[in-house]
Structure formats: C-alpha cells, structure tokens
C-alpha cells in the first residue's frame, strides 16, 4: 500500500502561496528527499504530511488514512533540525517518551529502549543528559526516539543541517544503516544536493513562489551505499542532474511563462 499519497495539495499563508498543485506518492521502503531553495515549502510539505499544519485544499494521506488519523495512530516519527531533546530526561528516558505516551508498560519500554540504543550505537550513554552529548549524538537520540514505536514512516526536517560536514557524512551512513535495519519509509528534507543524491531512492526537486514540484529524479545507485558510492562517476552524474533540475526550477521562477 502507498505510504504517502498527496493529491492536488495547496497551502496558503494569508496572501502567500506556500505550496501549489502538489501531487506525490511514496511507496513502502522508499527514501525520498525533498530538496529546494529556502521558501520552496519543503518543510511545510513535510509538516502537512505529519498533520502539524493543515493544507488549504487537497488531500494528504498516510497508510491510506487521513493525515490526522495517521498522527493519532502514531504512524510516523519525526526528527527536526534541532534534536529537540528534553533536557531533564536522560538519553534512555528521551527515547522512551513516545512509549510512555502510548502507555507501554515499564518492562516493554526498557526492552525497546535497549534495542534502540543498540540501533543508533549509543550503548553506555543511556544515563547521560542531553548537554553531555555532542550534536551528532544528540541527533542519534532523536532518531532513536522517532523510531522507538516502529512507525511505518520517518519524517526528517534537515536533521543534519546543523552538523559539520564530517559528522554529516558519517550520520548519512548511519542513517542508511538504520533505514535498512528498520525497514521504514523515509521522507527527508534537505538543502544539500550531494546528501540528497547519496541517501535517496528518489529526489523530489521543488522550486519557490509558489512552492511546487519542478522535477523528480530516480536515484538508481546500487544498494547498500558505501563511502565509495560518493566517488563513483554515476553519483556525480546524478548530482549534476539534481543541480540542473534545481537551476531549471529557479529559472522558471525568474522568467514566468
């Protein structure tokens, strides 16, 4: 079944049209990046999928359910640019938060937290407070928390945007490993062309004013991707393709038809 289905979706903030005529379908197991310049509405689109913002018109469903029902059923986990960890909770308790809200019993929670700590490789840091962790480690806790209740869908809003390039590339590898291990579908918002090309199975290129989809590029690089993937000629071809699609979208904006 299609995980995300968006039909003829429009979002206006007052006079501004943030998103116009968006159609998008995402299949199970896909890793879809939304890329585009600031103001193209990619973060807005992500929040509409998560029912954190309501669309002005059109529809968005997750797992065949209206967005609201999907949120109530906790069909997705979300990761923001800031890790948004709760300072007063340890790593383990941050990861357990959604499980507490879902009323899991203590034993089941503890077992799941252990599993997630293993998954994001933070063993030994369970009782640390957020301020004791590096930015990359904090974001790993955030990912563990988002995946703790086994959602079908993982929404990520520029999760590595605040990290340095080295940490970012390492986190990209980590994320691919986690994506494969968890089997979830990912929608990933980013500014970075190479990040989008490296991670995704499909890159959705967006352009601003009004925010719309200006191109979709399939990334047919073999799985699993490794550090050497970034050095393959085909990777560069795809990066170029994404870049040109971005510029095309930009030119469309400059010279309206």
């Amino acid at each position, binding site marked *: 079944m299609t995980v995300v289905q968006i039909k003829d979706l429009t979002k206006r903030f007052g006079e501004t049209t943030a998103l116009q005529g968006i159609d998008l379908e995402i299949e199970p197991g896909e890793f879809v990046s939304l890329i585009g310049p600031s103001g193209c509405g990619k973060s807005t689109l992500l929040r509409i999928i*998560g029912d*954190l913002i309501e669309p002005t018109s059109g529809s968005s469903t997750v797992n065949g359910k209206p967005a609201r029902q999907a*949120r*109530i059923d*906790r069909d*997705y*986990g*979300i990761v*923001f640019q*800031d890790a*948004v960890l*709760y*300072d*007063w*909770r340890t790593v383990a308790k941050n990861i357990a*938060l*959604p499980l*507490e*809200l*879902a009323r899991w019993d203590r034993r089941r929670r503890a077992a799941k937290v252990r599993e997630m700590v293993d998954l994001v*490789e*933070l063993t*030994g*840091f369970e*009782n*640390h*407070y957020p*301020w*004791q*962790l*590096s930015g*990359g*480690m904090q974001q790993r806790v955030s990912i563990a928390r988002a995946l703790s209740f086994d959602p079908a869908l993982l929404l990520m809003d520029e999760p590595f945007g605040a990290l340095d390039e080295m*940490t970012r590339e*390492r986190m990209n*590898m*980590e994320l691919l490993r986690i994506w494969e291990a968890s089997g979830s579908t990912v929608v990933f918002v980013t500014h970075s062309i190479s990040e989008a090309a490296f991670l995704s199975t499909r890159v959705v290129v967006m352009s601003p004013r009004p925010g719309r989809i200006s191109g979709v590029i399939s990334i047919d690089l073999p799985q699993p991707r490794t550090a050497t993937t970034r050095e393959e000629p085909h990777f560069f071809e795809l990066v170029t393709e994404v870049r040109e699609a971005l510029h095309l979208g930009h030119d469309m904006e400059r010279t309206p038809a």
Partner: protein
Amino acid sequence: MSTTPAAVQPVPRGGMARLVGRRLTDWLPAVVVLVGMIGLWEGLIRAFNVQAFLLPRPSAIATTFWDTRHELWSAGWFTFQEALGGFALGSGSAILLALVLARWRILGSALMPYAIAANAIPIIAFAPITNTWFSPLNKSSKITIAAVLCFFPVLVNTLRGLTSVNPSALELMDSYAAGQLQIFRRVRIPTALPFIFTGLKVATVLAMIGAVVGEYFGGALNALGVLILTRARVFEFNEAWAGVLLACLLGIALYLAVAALERLTLRWVPSTLE
C-alpha cells in the same frame, strides 16, 4: 561504531559537598571579605569612638546575641513560622494560579496586566490593615502580608517558565498526539522549574521581610519584629541589632534551603553540577 564517543563523565550524584556545589577553596575569597568587613567595622568604631546608639561594635552585638539567645530564638522561631507560612501559602497559590493562567490563555491575558500592576504596589503598606483584619497578636496577619509579598514574583516567574517552551518541543508532542495534560506534565512544568525556583528564591527573602516588618505595626510580644522595635525604643541597641542579625540569619537559612532543593531537583542543569 564509526565514531568514538567523547569522554563524558556521568552526572555526579549526592554528597553534602555536591549540594553546596563548591569546594572550600572556592569559598575562601568570600570568607576573607566577610572577616575583613567585620574587622574594619570593629576597628573603625574603636578608632573614631562611634556611639553605640549609632552603630554598636560587632563584638558587642555577638556577645549580646549569645547572652540573649534563648529569648531571641523563641522570638525568631515565632516569626520564622509566620514567614514560612506566608511563603508556603503565597508561593503555592501563585504556582497554582500560574498553571491555570497558562492552561487557559484567555484568562491569562485578562488577568496578567493586573497581576503585573499589583506587583508594583508597596504591599507592606497594607500591614496595619491586615493587623485589623486579624488580631495583631495572631500569626495570620503577618502570614497574609508575607503571602501577598511572595505571591507576585512566583506567579510572574512561573507563568514565564510555563510559556517559554521551545516551539519544536510542542510540535514534537503534537506529532505524538499528546493531550494538554501530558504536555503540561512532561514539557511545560519541567521547562518552568528553573523559573519557578528563581521566583521562590526571591520569595524567601520577601517572606522574612513581610513577617518582620508586619510585626513593626503590632504583633505578639515574643515576635522578632516586636523585639527589635521595643529594644530600639528603650535604647538597647545591642539587643535590637542582635534581633536584626537573627532576622538576617533566618532569611538566609530559608534561601539556602530553597537553593538546596533546587540543586536536588534540577539535576539535569549543568550549571548546578559544577
């Protein structure tokens, strides 16, 4: 793992030294200043032969403090109970009201301007009036003054804490379809705690001021404010100063008690662990 985690120490726990939060050597400069100030005070009074009714020597105050300790302690305890009662009543009701105002914003925007305006009122001016509401000999009149004094700083700080939550933290709770009550318990109240303690620490000092000054307008014979007032009237300045000293010590004790509770509660805040 592809990354070596930074060596971070786990959060240290417990111990009296932890509670105080500093090593003895860190306290040394402050102690030196205190001893120096008292020495200077003593020396200047001796050198210039200042009259005792203007300012007694610290050594004379200390001697009187010790000699009259039983009487002082009984008066101090009486007044301390008033301050404590006012502190608990005022702070408690302020926190409760802040929770209500933060939950129902419309009430907050209707009432907060008046709370802020009321905060500017010199509440101590009402002390003679509360003395007529209750009997001046009764603790209730001073508890009322102390409670009203404590109320506003705690209200304003708590409300600010409850409403200064990171928007992303709320968005995250929304994504979990969390209810208002869960958001309060798990996000708003923990976020507000450092603010609440700031308000409470201010309130401890105000509670002691409210109780002592309230007694200046009439109170039980064995109350600290009454003791200070009557001794000053009959020119027993050493005794009056000893009373002031005790009022200071009790105020500081209440402040330190709340500060210690803060350290115990806010274990996650890095600054309280250094």
